[in-house]
């Protein structure tokens, strides 16, 4: 279709305007992270004209970088001491290990699902998927009591297991769609040459799906990194991840918006970086592989 210049101009402007509207809350959140205490509470809100400071970050991470502005507050609202370094560490340990677990199980299982044929295979795949439909609250209540019996509450093991499980259906389906893309003839010709299944898997198939594995891993990482209800329920004091600990910044004596925004902003960085790395595989993962690119 031949489109007039003014039509294209309008379209470009409309696209930019809408996306900027979606980006605005993130920008506003960042300004709060860099605002000094009083400036946050100004009305009308200051969106562009404020003096940036890194004090919120220093307080939240218990650092003194030496070029902060003004005195550090001794007691934070709520009386707490928010050294968030350990919480960030908890988030990283849980996300990395649960991703590794989910990816390992999913890679072997989906290779099998992709290459073997067995009775009721379609039902089996449907069953794996249907576990993604379970409301977290229907899982977390019984798991809480089972964990209590097994002393798994407040442990890395407990949270890692449940996060890996939460990501398994997605990981299996995604890996299966990547394996399905590899022609079976490749495996078969190697089999004829006398290679074992294990050798083919390691030397031939795995190198081909490396990109797909990376995308799956990133998605699992992000879902674990952002998960809320399981960590909220299955941990008390021993460990906490960033989303859960952020919600504790709202206290009866006030909300430490600046500190909360700083922690939130810092917590977004790893997920942002990862998503940019695997962007082209992202959609396939989010749609459970239903959109083939």
């Amino acid at each position, binding site marked *: 279709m031949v489109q007039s210049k003014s039509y294209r101009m309008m379209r470009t402007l409309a*696209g930019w305007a809408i996306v900027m509207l979606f980006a605005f809350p993130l920008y506003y959140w960042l300004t709060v992270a860099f605002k000094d205490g009083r400036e946050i509470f100004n*009305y009308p809100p200051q969106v562009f004209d404020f003096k940036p400071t890194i004090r919120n970050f220093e307080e939240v991470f218990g650092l003194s970088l030496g070029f902060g502005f003004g005195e550090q507050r001794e007691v934070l609202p709520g009386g707490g001491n928010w050294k968030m370094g350990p919480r960030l560490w908890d988030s990283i340990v849980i996300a990395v290990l649960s991703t590794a677990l989910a990816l390992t199980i999913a890679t*072997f299982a989906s290779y099998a699902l992709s290459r073997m044929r067995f009775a009721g295979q379609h039902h089996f795949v449907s069953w794996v998927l249907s576990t993604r439909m379970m409301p977290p609250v229907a899982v977390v209540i019984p798991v809480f009591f089972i964990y209590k019996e097994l002393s798994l509450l407040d442990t890395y093991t407990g949270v890692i297991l449940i996060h890996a499980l939460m990501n398994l259906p997605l990981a299996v389906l995604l890996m299966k769609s990547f394996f399905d893309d590899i022609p079976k003839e490749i495996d078969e010709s190697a089999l004829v040459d006398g290679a074992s299944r294990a050798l083919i898997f390691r030397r031939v198939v795995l190198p081909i799906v490396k990109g797909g594995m990376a995308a799956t891993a990133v998605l699992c990482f992000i879902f674990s990194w952002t998960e809320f209800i399981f960590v909220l329920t299955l941990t008390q004091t021993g460990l906490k991840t960033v989303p859960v600990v952020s919600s504790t910044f709202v206290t009866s004596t006030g909300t430490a918006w600046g500190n909360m925004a700083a922690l939130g902003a810092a917590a977004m960085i790893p997920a942002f970086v990862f998503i940019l790395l695997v962007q082209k595989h992202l959609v396939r993962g989010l749609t*459970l592989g239903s959109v083939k690119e």
Partner: protein
Amino acid sequence: MAPLIMMLVAFTIIPVIYNIWLSFHEYSLFRRELEFVGLLNWQKLFSDSRMWGALGTTVFYFVFVLAIELVLGMAIALLLDAEEFGFELLRTVLTLTLVVPPAIVGMMYLLIEDPEFGVLTYVLDLLGILDKSTPILATSSTALWGVMLADIWQWTPFMVLIFLAGLRALPAEPYEAAMLDGASGFTVFRRITLPLLSKVIAVAVLIRGIDIFRMFDYVFVMTSGGPGTATYTLSLYSWQQTFSFIKWGYGATLSLFTLIVILILANLFIYVAKVRW
């Protein structure tokens, strides 16, 4: 395969069985132990007006959020499906909303909708839509919309990305034929684009629909169900009954009920829309 099956059995079948068992019991505060109560929890469930209220809120939230995200997502995807100046960058920017933890998005909107200094409060007041003296999240008529806004902001870009990928994969021939016939833009969309995208739309509705129906994070951090019971959803109500009010059996019953409703709705949809993976 074996580890996959073991994990799924351990974390799906066993919890569901345990939940069923729990729904026939209730924790007694006096005896400090679980007592068998038979069908009492299930009877209570169906006569509990707060449960019906929570179900109503969940359905309202589900219908409006899903509809808005679908229509808005499709419109933005059609708009951005072109190679104009900077559109590649804009599509990347949209992915950023997806990696922010929903709990943190909830807090972002708590700040944006703050009655004292929130930027949305300011804009709405300026435009004369909502007076500054009406706190969005503490007024029962607006609180749910305040929560829905956070959901719509975070997940409309998700719809955009899916539909963009779907649009990119469309064949060119039907469009060339339609152009020869001189069909209008809207006719082309309704007669060609929509039918060809139907599978992608169905999967988007299914995935998002399940997530919307079991939504927990936004209400938990933004309103905790308040003001009054205006923003109680089924997930939040069952969680609170279990962990705040120590009604272990009733909470389990509520969560089972949520699971049953989701499974019925999802399977009905899968059957009607013929979703296949």
